[in-house]
C-alpha cells in the first residue's frame, strides 16, 4: 500500500510539472499584450514599455516561467495586472465560494444517485427502475443553466424561498451561506446525479451477475445481505471514477451557473480575467484547477486501493 501511494505521488508530481509548462506556454501564445490592454489604445509606446518592465513582461520567457513556478511553490501567485492585488488573496476569496459549492453539489448528487441507482438495479425492470431511468435521461439531457433559471423563477421569484442570486458570505454563519448556494448546487447536481445514478445502476447490475454473488446466496445470505456485504463495494470502482471526474468538473465547470446566480466564484474570476487579458490571473487559476483535478485523481486512486485489494500490489 505504501509503495502504491509513493508511486501515485511520483506520477502526481510529474503531472503537475507538465501541466505548469503547458499552461504557461498556452497563455504565452495567446494574442494580446496585457500592458497595452491595460493602458488603452491611446497609450504611448514608452509608457507601455515602462509598464511591461514593471510587470516583468520584458524578461526572457524561461526566467518568467521559473519566477512564476517559484512563486507558486511558496504560495505566491503574483499580482493581478488589473486588480493590482495579490492573486493569492483574490483566489482565496473566490475559493471560499467555489469549493463549498462543488462539495455541496457533489454531496447532493451522491445522496440522490446512490439510492436511485441501487433501487433501479435491485428492482430491474420494475416501475421504480423505469422511473429512475426516465428521470435520469431527462436529467442528463436538460442543460443545467436552463434548469437553474427555472428554479430561480419558481423558488426565488414566485415562492420567495431563496434569493435569486448573489452570495451572502460566511461571516453571518454557515446557514445563510449554504442557503445562497442551495439553488446553484441543485442545478449543478442534477445532471451529475443522473449520470452517477446510471453508472451506479449498471455497475451494480454487472456485479450482481457475478459468480461470487451466487456463492454468497448459496451460503444462505438474503438478497439484501448479498447486496450490502458483497455487491456494493465491488460496484464502487466505476462509481468512484465518475465521482472523481465530477468533482473536477464541478470545481472548474461552474462558470455558467456562477454567472446565472451572480456568485463570486473561480469560474467567474477566470471569465473576467480572460476578457481583461489578466493573463497572470488566468494562469494561476487554471494552474490551481489543474492542481485540484490532479489531487482529486490522486485521492480517487487511493480510494480504489482502499476498495480493491488487488490494486494495492501494482
Amino acid at each position, binding site marked *: 500500500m505504501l509503495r502504491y501511494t509513493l508511486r501515485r505521488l511520483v506520477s502526481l508530481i510529474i503531472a503537475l510539472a507538465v501541466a505548469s509548462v503547458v499552461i504557461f506556454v498556452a497563455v504565452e501564445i495567446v494574442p494580446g499584450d496585457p500592458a497595452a490592454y491595460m493602458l488603452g489604445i491611446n497609450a504611448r509606446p514608452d509608457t507601455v514599455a515602462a509598464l511591461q518592465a514593471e510587470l516583468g513582461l520584458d524578461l526572457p520567457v524561461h526566467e518568467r516561467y521559473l519566477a512564476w513556478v517559484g512563486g507558486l511553490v511558496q504560495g505566491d501567485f503574483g499580482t493581478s495586472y488589473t486588480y493590482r492585488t495579490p492573486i493569492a488573496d483574490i483566489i482565496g476569496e473566490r475559493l471560499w465560494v467555489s469549493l463549498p459549492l462543488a462539495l455541496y453539489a457533489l454531496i447532493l448528487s451522491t445522496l440522490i444517485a446512490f439510492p436511485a441507482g441501487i433501487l433501479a438495479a435491485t428492482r430491474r425492470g420494475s416501475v421504480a427502475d423505469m422511473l429512475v431511468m426516465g428521470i435520469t435521461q431527462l436529467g442528463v439531457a436538460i442543460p443545467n443553466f436552463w434548469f437553474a433559471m427555472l428554479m430561480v423563477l419558481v423558488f426565488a421569484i414566485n415562492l420567495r424561498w431563496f434569493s435569486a442570486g448573489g452570495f451572502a458570505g460566511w461571516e453571518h454563519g454557515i446557514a445563510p451561506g449554504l442557503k445562497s448556494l442551495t439553488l446553484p448546487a441543485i442545478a449543478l447536481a442534477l445532471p451529475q446525479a443522473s449520470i452517477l445514478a446510471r453508472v451506479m445502476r449498471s455497475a451494480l447490475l454487472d456485479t450482481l451477475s*457475478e459468480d*461470487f454473488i451466487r*456463492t454468497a446466496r448459496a*451460503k*444462505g*445470505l438474503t438478497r439484501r445481505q448479498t447486496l450490502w456485504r458483497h455487491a456494493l*463495494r*465491488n460496484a464502487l470502482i466505476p462509481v468512484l471514477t465518475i465521482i472523481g471526474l465530477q468533482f473536477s468538473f464541478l470545481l472548474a465547470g461552474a462558470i455558467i451557473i456562477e454567472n446565472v446566480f451572480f456568485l463570486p466564484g473561480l469560474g467567474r474570476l477566470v471569465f473576467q480575467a480572460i476578457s481583461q487579458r489578466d493573463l497572470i490571473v488566468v494562469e494561476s487559476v487554471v494552474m490551481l484547477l489543474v492542481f485540484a483535478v490532479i489531487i482529486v485523481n490522486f485521492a480517487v486512486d487511493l480510494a480504489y486501493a482502499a476498495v480493491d*485489494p488487488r490494486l494495492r500490489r501494482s
Partner: protein
Amino acid sequence: MTLLRINGLGLEIHGTPILRDVSLEVARGGITGVIGESGSGKSLTAYSVMQLLPEGSAPRGEVLLDGRDIALLDEAALCRMRGNDVSMIFQEPMTALNPVRTIGDQVAETILIHAPRTSRRAARRRAAETLERVGLPGDQFPLSRYPHEMSGGQRQRVVIAMAIALRPKLLIADEPTTALDVTTQAQILDLLKGLVAEDGMGLMMITHDLAVVSDMADDIVIMKSGEVVEQGPARQIFGAMTHPYSRALMEASGHVPERAGAAADAPLLEVRDVIRDYPMARRHVLGPSRMFRAVDRVSFNLAKGESLGLVGESGCGKSTLTRAILGLDPIQGGEIRLGGEVVTAGHSVSREQRRKMQVVFQDPYGSFNPRHRVGRLVCEPFHLFDRQPRSDERDTALANALESVGLKADDANKYIHEFSGGQRQRIAIARALIIRPELIILDEAVSALDVSIRAQILDLLADLGDRFGLSYLFISHDLSVVRSITDRVMVMKSGRIVEAGETAQVFDTPAHAYTRSLIAAAPRLPDHAAAT
C-alpha cells in the same frame, strides 16, 4: 438411508421446458454422480435443490430433504437452509470468491449468518479450523489472505471450506474440478471424498466427465436434454450400460480418432534453446529489475505431417511458448525456424511465414467478433496474401473451408451466436484452414467442449491432417486427448521440457517423475467399462 429425494422434478424457464420428470436420490453419506453434457439440465437440477433458480423459473414436483419438501419453504426458511443444511461448490474457483474480502471473512460469514450470536472471534477461529481441514493451514494461509493471492486449486479449497463450515447434510458440487489441472483435480476429489466419509454428508457430484466420478460415486445418474436417461449403482452402470446415450457418452470419453499419421522427416518447425523472460515488478521503486523465466531453453522439432503434443499444468509456460512460435512475443534467446526461415517477433514476421501457421484457441465463444458474419470471420486470414483473391475465388475457398469442417457453404451468411460451441470450434478450424497453412497450433482447442463434440472435433482434425498433410502442435492439459491424437508428446514443467518421446511410450513407460505424477492423477474410466 435417503437424504435427498427428487421426485418428478420439472422446470420451465419463461415457458421453455428445461427439465422433465427428473427423479434421483442421494443417500446419507453417499455420493451420487450426476453426469451429462452441457444443456442436459444437470446444473439446474442442482439449483432446484438450492432453490436458486434464474428469474422466470416455474418448477414442479418434489424436492425432499430429510422428508421435508424444499419447494414449499418460504425465502427466510430457504436462507436458513442454504449453507447450513445444503451447501454448494462451483465450477469456476477464480470467480466464485468476492475479490475485495479476505478468505477468513468469507468463511466466517457462513458461520455468522447462520449463528448470529457467535462472536466474531469464535467465528474466525472456526473459519481457521475449517480452512485447516481443507488443507489450508493458518501458518501458510492466514485468514487475511485475499483470493487473488491464491491459485485456482487453493481458491476451490476456500469455496469448499465455506460450504462445509457448518457441516451440512448435503453438499452439491457442480463441476468442482473442471477448471483445474489434473494433479489439483485429484487432490480436490480426494478432499471431497475424505470430507464425505468424515462428516457423513451426502454428496451430489455434477460433472460432464465420466472418469471423474467413476471411482468415487456410489450411484450414477446420466442426464440428457433435461431428462434422466439411466441411473443406478455405479458398478452396475459402468458394467452394463443399457441406454444408447450412456454408451455413446462412454465411447466418446475414450475416443481415439483414426489417423494415417505419415510424417515426413523434413522438419517444419525447429525450436532451438528458446528462452522467454518476463520482467517482474521491482521490489523497491528504485530496486533492480527482476526477470521471470517462463520458457527455459526449450528445443524440439516438428516434422511435416506430424502431430506433436505439449502437455503441462497451467503456468508451466506452454502458452508463452505458443506466443513465441507465432511471433507474437520476442524471445530473449535461442531461435525458432519455420520452414527453414527464422521467426522473429513483431512486424518483421513475413506474411509468407504467417500464412504457414494458424492457431485455434480454447474458447469458442470469446474468439470471434460477434458483429461480423461467419463468412467475414473465416476469410480474415486472406489479408496475409499480397494479392487479395477475387471474390469468386474467395467464395470457393470459403465454401470449401466450411464444408471441409462439416458445415454448409451458406452458413457463411450467419452470425456467430447462431452456432453451438462445437460448431464454433469448427468455424475456428475453418478460419485456420482457409489459407491452407502447414502448421496449425491447437491451444486447448477441445478443452471447453462436451465429450461427444470433442470426439467429433478430434475425428475432424485427424481427417483434415491426413487429407491436407497438416502438422499439429497440440497443446492441452488433458492427457487423454493428447494421447489419442498425437504421434509424439512433450511434457513441460516450470518452463522446461522434462520429457519427450513417442506418445505411446511416454504414456506407458514415463521416465520422469513429473510425467508419472501427471498420469497417475488423471482420472480414468474403469477398465471393464471401457471395453464395452
